[in-house]
């Protein structure tokens, strides 16, 4: 019972904030309501027994990526006048049609599979994930590649975003 209540609570937060981000005219408000979506997803992760992932979600998405997005909004001064309602409605129609087919597949195909899994109470996952990341026959190599990707992304974004001095400005 409590699980059902919290599921619908987090679902309302997640979907509602995402809809607000989609429909709001002001892009800055969209960015802030994205925060609600990300936090609601962190709640879902806790419900699904992924405590480490929930913490990571709050730290990296809500603390990092969203701040980056808001910085980008502040530095680029987006124009807020809206002229493309027709295109948005077309997108809703197209995607909604696809979603109906998709939803039907989800509803039919997985109700059976849920009963198969006998779920115990989830324990903490931090220790297990740490061990998985550092075992040689497990995820060690992808983990190290991920650090290289992050380093390359850091250096690359600094290089791309640097201020260019043209010849006439010097």
């Amino acid at each position, binding site marked *: 019972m409590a699980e059902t209540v919290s*599921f619908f609570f987090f679902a309302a937060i997640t979907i509602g904030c995402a809809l607000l*981000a989609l429909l709001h005219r002001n*892009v800055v408000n969209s960015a802030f309501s994205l925060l609600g979506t990300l936090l609601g997803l962190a709640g*879902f992760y806790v419900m699904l027994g992924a405590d480490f992932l929930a913490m990571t979600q709050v730290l990296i998405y809500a603390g990092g990526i969203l701040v980056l997005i808001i910085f980008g909004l502040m530095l680029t001064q987006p124009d807020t006048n809206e002229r493309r309602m027709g295109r*948005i409605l077309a997108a809703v129609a197209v995607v909604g049609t696809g979603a109906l087919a998709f939803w039907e597949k*989800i509803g039919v195909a997985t109700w059976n*599979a*849920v009963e198969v899994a006998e779920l115990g109470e989830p324990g903490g996952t931090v220790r297990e994930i740490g061990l998985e990341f550092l075992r040689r026959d497990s995820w060690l190599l992808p983990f190290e590649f991920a650090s290289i990707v992050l380093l390359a992304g850091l250096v690359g*974004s600094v290089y791309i975003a640097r201020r260019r001095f043209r010849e006439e400005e010097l």
Partner: protein
Amino acid sequence: MGLSAYLTVGALLFLIGLVMVAARRNLIYVLMGLELILNAANLNLVAFNRFRPGGMEGHLDGQIGAIFVIILAAAEAAIALAIVLNVHSLFETIRPDDIDAMKD
């Protein structure tokens, strides 16, 4: 709540993200839609990991995949925003429809 409830939330999030990308108001809006799509995929990964037949003890591959998605999303957001800043200084707009030249 069963697996398909979580999958439905993931599908709705994916849908909203897709519409945000397709509406193309400005580049940062597109980026926010991309983050929503990646988050929907993450929710599916974690839900499948939870409802794995046989239980999730000792089998956290779905959660680890989600962590890698978060890592790539962070790198992608940093680089995409650097590109957006560059585009803004070059074209003085970040509407995707108005950006139609490879160089000035």
